[in-house]
């Protein structure tokens, strides 16, 4: 049930503040990724917090924070699986350091590298006020941020300060 989308802001219309906030979503994620390496969940928490802080921000900022958030869920899960799988091998020693695990590690490493590269590109684009759609995630984020939802938009558009009633 697509009801259409809000118009996209163009780079020259966006205030510098929005561009920086949008870029911050990606950079924040890298900082947290470093901090969260042993337990790859901190970056996810950081992204969720960043997303909620910017909940009231412009659609452009929200799009980028949303994309940064959802796009790191799979990588985070993959990293977590790699860590727990590795621990399991170390501690119980009955699964073994198999080629399947080695292959998984390399695939996850590759995914992280790719993710890092695309994250950097995302940050640069966001800073110059451009939309940047990651494969799959870009579309989801665009849909969830820019879709016109009459009821929600009405709620958001409700004015707090009203003139006195004569």
């Amino acid at each position: 049930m697509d009801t259409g989308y809000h118009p996209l802001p163009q780079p020259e219309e966006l205030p510098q503040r929005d561009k920086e906030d949008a870029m911050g979503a990606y950079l924040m994620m890298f900082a947290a990724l470093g901090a969260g390496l042993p337990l790859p969940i901190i970056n996810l928490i950081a992204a969720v917090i960043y997303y909620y802080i910017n909940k009231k921000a412009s659609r452009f900022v929200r799009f980028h924070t949303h994309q940064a958030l959802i796009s790191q869920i799979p990588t985070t899960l993959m990293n977590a699986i790699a860590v727990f799988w590795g621990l399991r091998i170390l501690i119980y020693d009955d699964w073994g350091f198999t080629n399947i695990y080695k292959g998984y590690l390399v695939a996850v490493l590759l995914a992280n590298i790719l993710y890092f590269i695309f994250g950097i590109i995302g940050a640069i684009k966001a800073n110059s006020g451009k939309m940047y759609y990651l494969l799959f995630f870009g579309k989801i984020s665009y849909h969830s941020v820019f879709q016109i939802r009459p009821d929600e938009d009405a709620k958001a558009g409700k004015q707090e300060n009203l003139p006195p009633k004569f």
Partner: protein
Amino acid sequence: MRKSVYRDLIILLTIFVASWAAFTYVPWGDIFSAPDVTVSIADEEKLGKLIVDYGILKDPTITIVRDKKIDSVMRMVTHLLVSKIGKTDFEYTFRIIKSDQVNAFTLPGGNIFIYTGLIEFCDSPEHLCAVLAHEIGHAEKRHVINKLAKELGLSLLFSVLGGNDNVMISEIGRTATSTVFDRAQEKEADDFSFQLMERSRINPKALAAFFRKLTDAYGASNEHLEILQTHPNNNSRIKASLEYKPDTGFVEKKIDIDWSNMVSTIKNWDSTQNN
């Protein structure tokens, strides 16, 4: 819009699964052990001979058991295995060392040493065969020479080959006999021994039986037993031995040796009757 989202998802999943599968089938073993076999067979044999001659046979603290009866039994047992190795680069030599330790070790060039304690500890010739097959596995896979090359460096090994530096040789010998193999190497030797035992018509479960007896007698980690040194792994090694499936046509053939007689001969042997 929906369709293209699903398409994207499928693309992502395919990339991930494909790279996982692709990297799973990369021959990691070959890549990581690539620098291994850098010592030629001839050099290994030469080095092995030097170590045996100067490090073992000339060591006054080591007594080699020489007895017609024991030798004939050993020849029978080892022939059973060696004749089934197939194509091999080594001339295998088996020697028995008088010592109560339950131990066996392999030196470069297919020189395998068994302690009398180990033979006495074996319940049957099959147990002994299992240990020997494991040691042959280390030799065939060239674990000893690779470990030596890694620990001492190739240049040192080659320098010894040139001259007769006895001190250095016995030092290398000491390193070789105290070598600890890593888990992958033990597994490789185990797997080799299962196949060799199967070809020799010995039940591969003999290794499990031997392991179990060892762990029962000495606990899971006995640092004197090379064969048990990767101790956290013992259960999986026992399991691997029990789970090894020989070909359908496999028929076990008991080794026809009066084992208790052999054990008592070994027990009663002393160096004065060296003949």
